[in-house]
């Protein structure tokens, strides 16, 4: 595992392509990029850039979870969804939702689920 700190959006493509072209396509798939940091928006832009940098058959995996916020938010949504279903027999997608602390990164993920597009 090799950490790269202070990476900018522009540096994503060369970093990703150096990683994927240095091994055979079969082994390249065993390479993964983890995007950390504190900026959820930037992390998503970086993911987009990673996807755009991949060339078949050289493909590597990428996983974004800045400050653990995406998995935290996914877990929060999942817990609430389950509770609503079990105790109130309601679908999360059909409820009105208020989020406090929108600048905390976690809030991005609940807002980002495609299922939520049908909402409000």
């Amino acid at each position: 595992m090799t950490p790269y700190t202070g990476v900018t959006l522009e540096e994503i493509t060369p970093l990703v392509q150096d990683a994927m072209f240095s091994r055979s396509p079969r082994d390249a798939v065993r390479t993964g990029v983890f995007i950390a940091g504190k900026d959820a928006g930037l992390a998503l832009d970086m993911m987009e850039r990673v996807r755009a940098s991949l060339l078949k058959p050289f493909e590597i995996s990428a996983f974004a979870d800045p400050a653990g916020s995406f998995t935290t938010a996914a877990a929060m949504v999942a817990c609430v969804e389950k509770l609503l279903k079990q105790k109130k027999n309601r679908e999360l997608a059909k409820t009105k939702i208020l989020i406090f602390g929108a600048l905390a990164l976690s809030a991005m993920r609940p807002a980002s689920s495609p299922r939520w597009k049908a909402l409000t």
Partner: protein
Amino acid sequence: MILAGYDGAKRVQGKADDIKKRFGVDVRAVDGSTEEKKIEALQGVEVVFCAAAAGVQVLSSASLASAKSLLVAADVNAVPPAGIEGLELFANGAELAGGVLGVGPLAIGDVKYKTEAGLFQRMATSTKALSLDFATPSSWRVRSPEAGAAILIAASSGRALAAAARRSGYRPLVADLFDDEDTRALAATNRLAGHPQSGFDGEALIAALDAMAELEAPAGLVYGAGFEDRIDSSKASPALDCFRQPTGHGAVREKPGRIGAPLRRFPAFRIQTSASRCRKALKNWLVKSIGGAGGSHVAPAAAWQAGCESVYFQRIAPGDPISLLLLAYGTNADVLGASRQWPAPAPDEPFRFGGSLRPARLSPKMEVLLAKAAKAVAGAAGLRGLKQHRFSGRWRRFHPDRNQPSTGRDARHFRGSRRPPISSPS
């Protein structure tokens, strides 16, 4: 969806615009700077997510109590004071002021770290490149019931599945044909639902399952052998409806052409329902009784006698049987893994089931190929629930063998497996 800012609406408006642009979601920003404004923002709201800075109380008991429509409030702040007044760290449905159900930071944290670790694991073991950022729907749908959950089991003998459920910390509710002492000792509740000779009594089975489901609110239904020849018996049970229970076997009979299509690429896959069509080469064929299981239903085709009708003929494929365990969703399926089986021949039962082992030691490529075929069959038949699909062969040649509509003995190999599915719904 509404975003509330503790210092007014202006700052969160920028974030709302970004979310709207990025994901096309309708989001609006409101001012949540004072107690009154928070109460106003809560009007009509049913769910609250708190993701504010650590150690900041966002909602007081008074504002919770004033929010008449509020059902659930969740908070990820683990540093005291809690972001929501009265919320315990591990709360998962505990009532707060005004009867609102609370979800605490460590209840969320428990799911969070499992999600994160699971995704890392998936990335490390995947055979294709993954892109994990939650912006696309996750295909990871396999989730275990909570520890101690009740599981309904229906099988001709429920003992093995009940033992498997106990080993995994669940409480088995068993309907079977034996009601033996071993099963009684394992089961939380059990009922007799037929006779070993004649099989399940449909009405008795549904009544038994319904009665147990009403008492225990089970997390799901697992069914084993005993239904192979009863393709429709899993249909009608009001109490079981909530599981979207295993169905779809009827389709195997109704749409054989469509279901067979994914298997045509396996050249040796031949099934005949009449002996005359395969008579010329009878020595290379097997005869199987429809709906049989366990290997005692298989014999060399030469042993077939005219007049014996509920059978089909299948060409012999050399090699060992491989069994894929599937979790089917009707239109698609997860292939959970593969195991290898061997026969324990008896003089009158040359193909009797002997045992099974995991891993199956297939090449990754072959694993994916077989998984694709099994998924296509499950999808075309609209199967639901845990299924097994068998292939026979060796080296690079495998042939579809049998689509077993129930959970077999091999399922036990997957207890506690942390390996991601060979292939998830695409």
